[in-house]
Every structure is written in C-alpha cells, then in structure tokens.
C-alpha cells in the first residue's frame, strides 16, 4: 500500500515539476534575484518555486534560466526543502563499473582519478566477498568540513558536502581527516584544458590544479530534476537516490519508500561507529543477483 502511495506521490510530484519546467533549475536564489529586477515584460508565466510560492516570471527570462550558472557563493546554499540521500544495494552490484564511467565522463575525470571506486570487500574470513561501490558519503557530521582552514568545503542545507575549488588552498587536511578516502587531489595539471564553461562547485569542472575534488552528488543534475549520473548508468539498478524529506528513493526504474527499503532490507551506514553520520546507506549483500566474480582482465585494466 505504502509503496503504491509512494509511486503515485512521486508521479504527482514529477508532473508538478514538469509543469514548472526547467525553471526549478534557477532555484530560490535565482528567482529572488529575478523578482528584484523590475522590468515590465509583455508576457508573464506563473510558476511554482521550490519553496511552494507562486511567482510571475517574464517569458523572455525563462530560456536563459535553463543555463543558470551557479556561482561558488550560491553553491553554499542547498536546494531548498531537500535532503538528498543515497542507498546502495550491495546484493545487486557485479562490478560493472558503469557508474565510474558515467561519473568520469561528466566530471571530466581521467580514469586514474575517479570519484567513485568499486571496492572488493570481505568482512571476515568466513563471510563471502562482495563489491562495494563507494562515493563520498556526504556525512552529516563531516570530518573534512571541520578541519578546513578556509571554509573551502562546506555542508549545505540539502545535505551535500561540496568543495569550492576557487577557495581551496590545497592543504589536504580534509583528505587526511576523511576516514572513507573519498577525496582526490589534482596533483598535476588538469586535463580540462578544453573546458570553456565557467567553474561551479556544483559541476566540479573545470578542475583546478593543486585543489581537492570528490563526488558531489551532481547538484547541477538535481537542480534540473535529474538523477546523478551514476544512478541511471548502472545496468543493475544498484544505486537508489532520493530525498529523505519525501522519504522516496529511486534507481531510475523503481521508486520506493526510503524508510521501507531500509527497514525491509536492513540498511546500514558504513562505519557508523565513527559518528560521521553518512548520507549513503548500504543494503547488505544478500539475495545476490550475480555470483562474486573477479574478472582479472578488468582488474589489470584499472
């Protein structure tokens, strides 16, 4: 019953969002800056903002907003009313590495510097090995944010931990403090020479030499009401992504209640005892879709 509800719920929301079109990409901030400009345009459209307010926006502005560039300052605010959360079903992962490919492609990463890693895990001698996709856990008590001396990495209201590469001084204290080895450093010159778009912490491109990077939950996609790149790219639907406040997560194929999923499949967070309060949950590797297989060719490639 609940599941059905959640499906209709999310469908209704989806339709609602469609109606507002890509204007949501502009977010509250962009809209408020819009309303301050008192231009009298001929035609206006009434739109619903993410905080539930109705606003009138001139039609001429709508097209531009689609490509709204989120500045480092704006990226410090989260997407209003959201608490992003991820659930990774370890029973479904077969180390296809498609999530890594998609992530690398969209973040313009070279294969030697991925944000996502798929690790071969074995909890103890008797237990069977499994694959564990690992991103940034976007902790609610982030050890990395605590130690940054310049506030270059920050926790947003929507739960995402971002890095402002224009602020980062490259001291790497955050990397030393992160217990999950989630962060990577731009040791040499960046491969993004051809990228011409302006830098935004929400896209993490172009990357900058001497600064830190990491998985960012793709806020640029979230603003467009799309899923982070790794989620739809997974052929097995391993990764669920959604909003904790809505209590829904989706892997692109099925949408489920977060609380139900965590309850029924005994969801847990990796190394809960460290007190970092991750926003990424794991479902134990039970009822496996695939047997654990180490493809030696793939291992040697990576």
């Amino acid at each position, binding site marked *: 019953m609940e599941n059905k509800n959640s499906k209709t719920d999310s469908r209704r929301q989806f339709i609602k969002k469609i109606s507002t079109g890509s204007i949501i990409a502009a977010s509250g901030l962009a809209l408020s800056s819009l309303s301050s400009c008192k231009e009298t345009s001929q035609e206006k459209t009434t739109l619903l903002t993410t905080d539930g307010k109705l606003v009138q926006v001139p039609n001429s502005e709508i097209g531009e907003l689609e490509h709204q560039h989120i500045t480092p300052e704006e990226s410090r605010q989260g997407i209003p009313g959201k608490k992003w959360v991820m659930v990774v079903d370890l029973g479904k992962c077969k180390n296809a590495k498609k999530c890594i490919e998609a992530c690398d492609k969209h973040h313009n990463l070279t294969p030697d510097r991925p944000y996502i890693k798929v690790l*071969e895990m074995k909890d103890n001698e008797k237990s069977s090995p499994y694959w564990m996709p690992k991103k940034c856990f976007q902790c609610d008590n982030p050890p990395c944010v605590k*130690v940054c001396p310049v506030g270059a990495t920050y926790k947003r209201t929507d739960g995402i931990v971002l890095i402002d590469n224009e*602020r980062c001084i490259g001291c790497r204290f955050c990397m030393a403090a992160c217990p999950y080895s989630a962060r990577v450093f731009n*040791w040499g*010159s960046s491969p993004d020479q051809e990228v011409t778009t302006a830098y935004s912490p929400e896209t993490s491109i172009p990357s*900058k030499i001497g600064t830190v990077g990491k998985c960012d939950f793709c806020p640029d996609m979230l603003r467009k009401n799309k899923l982070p790149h790794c989620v739809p790219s997974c052929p097995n639907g391993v990764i669920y992504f959604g909003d904790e406040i809505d209590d829904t997560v989706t892997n692109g194929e099925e949408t489920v209640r977060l609380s139900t999923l965590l309850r029924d499949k005994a969801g847990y967070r990796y190394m809960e005892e460290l007190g970092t309060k991750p926003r990424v949950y794991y479902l134990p590797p039970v009822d496996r879709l695939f047997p654990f297989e180490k493809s030696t060719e793939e291992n040697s490639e990576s």
Partner: protein
Amino acid sequence: MDIEQRKRELVKEFSPMLRKTTTISKIWIGFLIAVIAVGFYALILQFTKGHIVTGMRDNVVWGIYIINFIFFVCLSYSGAFIAGILHFFKTPWKNSVSRIVEITTVLSIIIGPIFILLCIGRLDRLHYLFLYPRIQSPITWDIIAILTDLIGCFLYLYLTFIPDFSILRDNSDDAPKWRKKLYSILSFGYQDTTSQRERLNKITRIMSTMIIAMAIVTYSVLAWIFSLTVQPGWNSTIFAPYFIIAGLYSGVSVIIVAMYLIRKYYHLNHYIRKVHFVGAGIILLVISLLFGYFTFTEYFSRWFSHKTHDIELLETLFNRYFWEFIFANYIGVLVPIGILFFKKFRTIKSITFAAVIAILGLWFNRYLIVVPTLETPYIPIQDTRPEFIHYSSTWIEWALSFTGIAAFILFFMLIMKLVPIIPISGIIDQERKSKKIKPKIIL
C-alpha cells in the same frame, strides 16, 4: 679589573669570530649555498608542475615535508622551553649555551613553517587563511599559535642580544662603518646602567616564562592536527604530551650537536666545557626515558586492545617498516639511554653520538607516525599503481628538506658573525657577581 676594560678584552677575544671568515667556513658557506640553489631549482619545478613531482598521492597526502615541519617546530619549541628554563631558574652554567639555544629556537620556528608551505597545493591563495579563516580548524589554531610563538621567540632572542649589541657598539672602534651603525641601531640606546639592566632582566624573565607557555600551546596544537582526526594511528589522547616530550628529545640533541660543532670549529673549549655536555646529557637521559615510555605506551595499548585497524597499522609497521621501526623506537631510544646512563660513558664525543642517534631516531619516529597511518586507511587501498599504495619521497622533496637544514646552518653561521655565540654580557654579569671585576661608578 675595570668593567669597561674587561668588556674591551672580551670584544677583542671574540672579534676574530665575528669579522674573519676562515677558509673552512667559506667552503661551508659555499656548500650550503649550493644546496640551497638545488633546493630552489626543485622548488621552481614543484611550482610549475604541481605536486605531481613529489611522492605524495591521494592516500599518503602528506610526506616528508610535514615530518620536517613537525621536526623543526619541535626543535623551536624545545629550544624555547630550555631557554626559558635556563633563564628562569638562573642556571649557573647557562651562559655558554643559552645563545645557541635561543638562536636554534628562532631559526627553527622560521624554517619549520616553510615546510608546511611546501605542502600547500595553492600557494597563490595563502592569504585566504587570513581572508576566510575558520576558527574550528586546527590549522587555524596552528597558524595563530606559530605566529605568536614566532613573535615571542623573536622578541626574547632580541632582548638577550641587546646587552651584547651595546657592548659591541662601544668597543668596536676598528670595525667597518656599517657594522658600527648596525650595532648602534640594534642596541636600542642601551647603556648598561643599573636601572636599565634591572628592567631588561625583568622583561627577559617575564618573556622566558611566556615562551615556555607558548611553546607548550604551539606543540600541543601541532599534535592535535593529527590526534583530532579519526584515523587509527593518530586518534590518540596522549599525542600532545607525547609530541612535547619528543620535541624536547630532539631539541636537546640538536643543541648538543650544535655545542659540539661550535666548540670544535670555533675553538671555544674554554667556554663550552665538559660540564655542559654532561649536564645536557643527563637532561637527554631523563627525556629519553620519558620518550621511550610514551612510545611504548602508545604502541602497547594499540597492540593489546587489538582493534582491526590498529592491528593493520602495526602489521605495516612491523613488516614494511620493520627496520625503520627498530631504528626509531628501539635503537633511537635505547642507545642514548645506554650511553648516558653510565657515568664512565659520558664523554663529550659519546654524548654527541647519543644525540645524533636520538635526532635520527626521532625523525624516523615522526615518519612512522605520519606515513604508515596514511597508508593504512579505514577503507583498504585497492589501487594498482604502486605510487598510490606506498609513499616514496622524490629527489625534489629531499632537495627541499636538505635546503631547510642548509638554511638553518647558514643562518646560524651568519648570526654568529653578528653577535658572539657566547654572550659577553653574560660573562660580565657572572664576573660581576663573583666580584672579579669592579662595577663602573655612575655619577
């Protein structure tokens, strides 16, 4: 003997050290400048190509730069501590060593932070530390502590220099003009009157206690950079006191080595005597016992409690870093104890040897605190690239490390050209007290 006459005599005695540069020291200076030049080239490479030229990678994000940083800052801290103690308790034999200690303190607090700057990926944004400071970060605490310490130590060193500058100003008639002018500016109008002397003594005494306190704060904060994280090898409650003891251990050792070298090359056997070495050696013995105790406690509790990640770390230490571990934590502690414990072994040479072993042992001890911990994170490293699994420092890092040491020695030599390494004013004070010389009558 008249006090003014005695001053002249002492200036005459020390002026060859100040003004003449022997061939050996010329060769030394040339060599040190060459080392610094190589370091400069390495620095340019690192600036232009990024940190890719170092051995640091995503897992081992900090390498020998931060180890040198800890090492030099701890040198400074312990120098300040010892200088403070010597001054505060009016130690009778302090005069001959106090200036060595003070110069060590100031130079190492200048050179130490340069190593942390080498660690920073974006030096062009260094001012962000002051533009956007976040007070929660231990690095911000460290910056505040080190800057305070730097200013405090510098003031203290300067205070102890003033009486000598004034003596040199009044007694260097045959010196070049720039030198006279420099002394006259630096002596700050000090005339060595009774009231001036008392005031200076009072200020120096207050500063000596202040720098002890500052040194403890600075070094605790430095230890917290590691121990406030959740990493298995670092998250330890005893790190701050452990680092303080370790700092004293290397600090006393460096001072012993400096005493030995200065005594030998400047022929100061008359001033730096065996009693100083034995005194410093006994202090080193006490500290080495404490240091060994702290090291043992730190590793013993990790081993006994047997937590998974602690054990992974210990396994790395006892396999990959076996010899380094043995050298740092066995030889580096037990050999100095063995030498210093027995009275008959306490000769100048053997005490210096013990000090050299202690310095090297301590450097490796720091290395084993930083690198193996980063090589055994909570999440296992699964990488096929060897440089991402294990840290091995590149020639650039070594070149810059030796540049730090070379700069330390070079600046030391240059300061010794400016002021006598044995404080003249201290000798005067001592002789005044023992009534060997008559005070000047001030009308």
